[in-house]
């Protein structure tokens, strides 16, 4: 439902995906976390916080565009729309939205490349209703031909509108194809017009039946609730849903030659020239991933970070816009940088990025700068777990991130301390290994 646009997507990558990969252990903000598994395989995460009578219920499916087959692109995103609007066996179309709205609650959904999330926040006395609604659409989505056609027509219209009006959307898709290089990870979540036209209800149903099952889902409840009663409610509404199978994706990591790669594309709706830079990083959950996380707060994530200072300096600004951060898809991590600048400054911006990286490689990183990066990291972590909705989404994303690399939520819950102990030498080593021209994909975007 809420597919973020290209610019924000990149901008938010650090905000959402970094945190998905890096969950704190005993950080005071995320106390009260516990989890268990139902007989049908559904993982249930609780996060208790009792200061306001508010509770969030979120369900995350390990189901995104990386699971789409060639010729069937767009099915993950289309299914997200149907989940939001089509209704289920006991819930009529729009009733889910209406029921949540009626008690002063909010709700949304988000399809990503490697997972799809559905979430609502409500006054805590309506927790049973939210569980009832979520269980009903997990159990029996109403996939009629008529609703499918309506959702497909809407999606095609959205696709046309966005491709003709959203600057840098098509160039970002091209960049992803180069950066990820294989079909599963590189193709767009939005799908192609041709594929969407050829989709059938059966395609959507197959995707739903295979991936929207308890074995492939996580339910997270965050906020003010009674644990025992909630366990009873969860069992009541979810335990009798058939568990399904755990999908066993066979994603092979392509081998990349370590040679500089750059291309130029024309973007018909670009408002100014731009450049994308992408570095392929160590996978989430690895020791290097922690260091990559912290490095983001040295480079880009914060107004006083190096690249912000260098490119958006008030005295000598060379870029109009700068965004980026770590992006994670399943078991892969990349670091993306996106810069908009005037034509003569585009190359200067690229040079400035590599110049800053070179400075770090030459051991120019003080303890004081690293301490500031750690403070920014803590602050960002608090910001992205500030509400019960944020915490529910955060925990679900952390769960899937860790699962993709064979780790558990508990492993993730033990990482903040390690991040806060990282030294300048470890950062310098990571920059030397991954943030080099030979490991970089560059895409220049020209205005057409």
């Amino acid at each position, binding site marked *: 439902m809420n597919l973020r646009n290209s610019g924000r997507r990149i901008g938010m990558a650090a905000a959402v995906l970094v945190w998905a990969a890096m969950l704190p252990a005993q950080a005071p903000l995320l106390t009260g976390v516990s989890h268990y598994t139902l007989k049908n395989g559904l993982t249930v995460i609780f996060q208790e916080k009792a200061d306001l009578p508010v509770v969030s219920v979120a369900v995350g499916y390990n189901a995104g565009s990386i699971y789409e087959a060639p010729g069937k692109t767009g099915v993950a995103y289309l299914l997200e729309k149907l989940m939001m609007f089509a209704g289920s066996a006991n819930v009529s179309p729009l009733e889910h*939205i209406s029921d949540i709205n009626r008690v002063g609650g909010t709700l949304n959904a988000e399809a990503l490349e490697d997972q799809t999330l559905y979430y609502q926040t409500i006054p805590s006395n309506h927790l049973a209703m939210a569980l009832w609604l979520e269980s009903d659409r997990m159990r029996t989505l109403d996939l009629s031909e008529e609703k499918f056609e309506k959702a497909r027509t809407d999606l095609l219209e959205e696709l046309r509108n966005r491709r003709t009006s959203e600057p840098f959307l098509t160039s970002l898709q091209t960049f992803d194809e180069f950066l990820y290089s294989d079909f599963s990870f590189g193709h767009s979540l939005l799908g192609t017009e041709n594929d969407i036209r050829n989709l059938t209800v059966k395609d959507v149903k197959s995707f739903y039946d295979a991936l929207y099952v308890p074995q492939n889902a996580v339910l997270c409840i965050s906020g003010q609730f009674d644990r025992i009663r909630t366990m009873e409610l969860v069992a009541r509404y979810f335990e009798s849903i058939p568990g399904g199978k755990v999908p066993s994706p066979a994603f092979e990591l392509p081998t990349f030659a370590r040679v500089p790669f750059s291309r130029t594309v024309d973007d018909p709706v670009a408002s100014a020239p731009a450049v994308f830079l992408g570095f392929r990083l160590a996978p989430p959950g690895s020791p290097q991933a922690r260091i990559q996380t912290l490095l983001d707060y040295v480079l880009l994530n914060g107004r006083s970070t190096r690249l912000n200072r260098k490119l958006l300096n008030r005295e000598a600004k060379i870029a109009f816009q700068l965004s980026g951060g770590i992006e994670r898809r399943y078991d892969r991590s990349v670091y993306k940088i996106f810069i908009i600048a005037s034509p003569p400054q585009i190359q200067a911006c690229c040079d400035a990025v590599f110049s800053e990286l070179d400075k770090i490689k030459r051991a120019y990183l003080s303890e004081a700068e690293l301490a500031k990066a750690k403070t920014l990291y803590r*602050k960002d972590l608090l910001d992205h777990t500030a509400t019960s909705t944020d915490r529910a989404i955060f925990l679900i994303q952390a769960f899937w991130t860790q699962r993709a690399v064979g780790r558990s939520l508990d492993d993730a819950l033990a990482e903040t301390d390690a991040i806060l102990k990282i030294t300048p030498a470890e950062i310098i080593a990571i920059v030397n290994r991954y943030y080099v021209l030979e490991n970089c994909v560059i895409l220049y975007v020209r205005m057409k």
Partner: protein
Amino acid sequence: MNLRIARILVGLAVGVSLAAAASGQERFRQKIPAPDPRPELILPRLESVTLTNGLAITVVYREAAPMTSLHLIFSGGEQVSPEKTPGLATLVSGMFGQGTQLHTAAEMEERIESIGGSMSVSADQDVVLFGFHFLEEYLDQALDIVAEMILFPRLGDREVKIVQSMVSAEMAAQERNPVFMAHRVLGKILFAGHPYEKFGFDRSAIRTWNSRDLLDYWDRYIRPNNTQVLLTGSVNINAASRKISHVLNLWRPRDLTPTPLPPPRPPDRTRICFVDLPQASQCTICAGTVLPALVPGERFALLTLGQLLGGSINSRLFLNLRESKGYAYETRSRPEFYRAGGAFSLQAIVRPEVVAASVREIFFEIRLLTRESASSKEIEEAKFILLGGFPLQLDRYDNYSGYIAALKATGDGEELWSRFSENVLEVDSDRVLKAAQKYLSQPFVVVIAGPREICRDQLAEFDEVDIFDARGQFLETIKK
């Protein structure tokens, strides 16, 4: 209206029961579970103290809050900007990001981020509002930063130019947004002749800003006896006032002779206005009227009215314009309260070919509210949304402190804080009808922002339309 809702509900019920019967499922799946009793919302007290220099401090204690929020609320806002330099309060707000006499802007950014801080400053009709959020262990450093910004500001021509350029770019981007343009024109017309009119300044006003007027504004209004400090976090009032006094005891007060702010006057006639935005593909309709001085208790009736008319997908405008007629993509309505009165406005984004019909339906719904009592069920549903939504909007730490800061900005307090729920619960059909009759019977100003060329036939359906250009400048009046 009620008949229409009833039909929809009956339709839903039939569909649901058929599906349920067919699937042979557990009985509990067939029926939406009943809610538990409404939980108590316990909010901390707003504790206040005033320092000898007149600085009013309010502290809201939140146990174990990892972030502390500090707001400074400088009374005045745009309504005290000089006539010749409208928007000056916005310039003042921009100066907080321009460094100080002791540190450059970059150095200040570095200091702020070193304590896990983020800052935002804005100006509205009544106040300049400074918000600062930081990790709780850095309260002393945060107060040092804020004191330096206030006591040693950098207010030179160079800084003025930087802020002019930033605000101009930001406003140019906003002017491409039909919702922004429709609301700006609506505000200017509703508050024409009132000091609040200056809040709707346009880009041409930015050129009038200068450092002399800036210094004058700063000297008059950035004073302790014209400022409220709000601190939200795990700190108590004694410690907070001691620390604040320590860093701001040199901040000198100044005699203020406040000019009484008259209540705004309702429009003298209903007007239809059109802002020509050739690039827009849809039409944004904003309609509103002024709320002059309110009687206690009316706010909650008006909040309920806002919900009932267009506050949710179960509201009358949504059911009419979207669900029944298929005209609109979305609808909204709500009251806004300022230090002097306020405004009641609504918004609908519709297809260009149904603009005239949509305006007719909007007026139909407004008139209906002034003639007939809403049913108790409808009132209760609207109250339910207000009651349920209230704690939700406090869930984020900066929204929590921002909500209280907004109360302080308009001179409100516990009424809309600890007594919010009981005040909402007291609203009934009579009160809502009285509020509707008193305020929604006033003339409304309707502003439509969209492509004039495509809407030409639609505009011909109105007796008289005032046309504005894409920058919000009046062009002409067209008559039937």
